[in-house]
């Protein structure tokens, strides 16, 4: 069987004060899959993503990304793994305030390997932000900042994209633009894991995982129960 993009085995995350954010979760996400993670506030969605990107570690169980056990990596190795394989879009738009939009994108290139201004600009154009490249984040609207963040997440061409509420603060027009970007990425064969409250975005995804109190309450492929048609999708 092909190596999965993500494999969780009996993963639990307990925060100080006995807060069980994730409770013995097991799941597999094959490469190229577009997954929407949904669920009420506090159900453990962000925690789930943090375990994936290696910023956080599970209390018990195993998290594997592309066959690598993230917990086994030293912090420096985890940083390398992250910049090679993962593009992160945050719940809030974290841009560096004293850098222009273009420079923010280039920063990811700088930490990754080489700065390529032309490519960074192309990336911004692909999310419809080419004309705002030389603006500071404070001069942008929320939707524009979010798209700049997406451009930064994509500039190093990662295999896996993790997004936390990418449309949470956007109006419909901006939302539609972000949906289009994700559709495009999916067509390009990227693995996309997006946390969202947005039903439309949830329905666009191939697969929907609903968390509740740190457990998987629902796991469906376009409305069918997982397991039932996994074989056909994974092929």
């Amino acid at each position, binding site marked *: 069987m092909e190596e999965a993009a993500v494999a969780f085995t009996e993963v639990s995350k307990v925060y100080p004060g006995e807060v069980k954010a994730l409770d013995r979760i097991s799941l597999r996400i094959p490469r190229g899959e577009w997954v929407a993670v949904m669920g009420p506030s506090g159900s453990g969605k962000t925690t789930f993503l943090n375990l994936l990107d290696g910023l956080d570690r599970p209390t018990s169980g195993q998290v594997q990304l592309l066959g690598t056990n993230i917990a086994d990596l030293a912090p420096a190795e985890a940083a390398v793994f992250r910049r090679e394989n993962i593009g992160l879009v945050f719940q809030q738009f974290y841009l560096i305030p*004293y850098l222009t939009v273009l420079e923010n994108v280039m920063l*990811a290139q700088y930490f990754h390997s080489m700065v390529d201004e032309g490519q960074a600009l192309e990336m911004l154009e692909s999310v419809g932000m080419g004309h705002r490249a030389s603006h500071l984040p404070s001069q942008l609207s929320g939707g524009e900042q979010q798209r700049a963040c997406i451009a930064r997440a994509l500039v190093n061409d990662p295999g896996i994209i993790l997004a936390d509420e990418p449309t949470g603060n956007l109006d419909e027009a901006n939302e539609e633009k972000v949906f289009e970007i994700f559709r495009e990425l999916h067509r390009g064969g990227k693995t996309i894991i997006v946390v969202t409250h947005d039903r439309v975005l949830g329905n666009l995804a191939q697969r929907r995982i609903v968390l509740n109190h740190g457990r998987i309450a629902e796991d469906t492929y376009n409305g069918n129960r997982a397991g039932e048609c996994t074989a056909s999708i994974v092929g």
Partner: protein
Amino acid sequence: MFFRLLANSLARRMSRKLLAAFAVWVGISLILAFLAVSIDVGDKMNRELQAFGSNIRLEPVAASVPVRVGGHDVPSTAPPAYLEEGELVTLKRIFWKNNILGVVPRLWTRGKTEGREVPLLGVWFEHKIPVEGGEPFATGARRLYKHWKVEGSWPSDRPAGGRISSLVGDTLARKLGVRPGDAIRVTVPSGPATIAVDGIASTGGREDDAIILPLAAAQALAGREGKYSEADISALTTPENKLAEKYGQDPKSLTPAEYERWFCTPYPGSVAAEIQKSVPGSAARVVRKVSETQGAILTRIEGLMFLLAMLTLVACGLSVAGVLTSAVLERREEVALMQAIGASRESVLLLFLSEGAVLGLAGGLLAAATGSFLGQWLVRAVFGSEPELHPALAVLSPFLGLMIVLAGSIWPVWQALNQDTAAVLHGN
């Protein structure tokens, strides 16, 4: 990209960084000023101690308290009240001859002017002692009494026309109402004499009440040719230490080896002993010079200034650390973000420390200018003397700035690097 990052970070987020650079600037300026004073004090002190102040007083045995030479009491034969001027040449023949920097024989006598009795003091103003097989040794009051302030001109030992020239102590000059260029009529047992006033001397000593004239003239007026009553000698000596102290307490307690060492070290005591041996009927005693007491005070000022500089360094370091800590804490999200998008610790550390380095260097460079300025002003204010320039301090300044800022920022940056990135970014 790195420099773009650095430049933008510095240019677009100024306020707090300016505060840090300002703290560095003020702190190092003070440090430099204190150090400048400390160094100047040291220089000044050395110069003062090297100046030919007399530190040994030679007197006839009778006039002196019993003195021990090399641990033996000198037999007190019939004590002459005066010493022989001619025997002073032996000073340049003794073991420590090269340590003898100056000598002035002095003869005290009395005369009357305007119905009041005045002390007359004969000295060598400028004199040459012949040295076997060498240049004559030039000495005299003018060289030895550097601290005398003379208004008018220094007299010569043998003025043209056979007149007697003199300095008048300033206290006496005020009483007599004389000025340089005046003449004083003095009556001595052998008759009247006219003394020309070349200058008014402020000496801070007994001489302020006296008329100071060439030794030969005083001898003639007193009828004591070739005699003097005491001599001030300046000798280059080594500061006393434990050994000298031990000798001072009880010379017999020294082991032969220690005695040898004591004898061969130019402690004031050993030089004085040697002089006493070479001049018959004399007693040499070590004079604790005023400048030595001053020296002790100056040493303390020097230490104090150094201490102040160090304390300022600590205070400055702490305040810079405080400013930088809050500046870095303010940027925790930025650090977390950089780490989340794959920055290594090293690259984040490099960025923050470089920023700090720029601030530290800037503050230090500014301080190099203001610090030396402040230091010069302080030296002038405290000592009233012309300050030295200290290029070394100016060079030190940017380095100090660098060190302070790096020391102050390493800890907060390290903290930020070790923070819980996930928690910071997700605002939980």
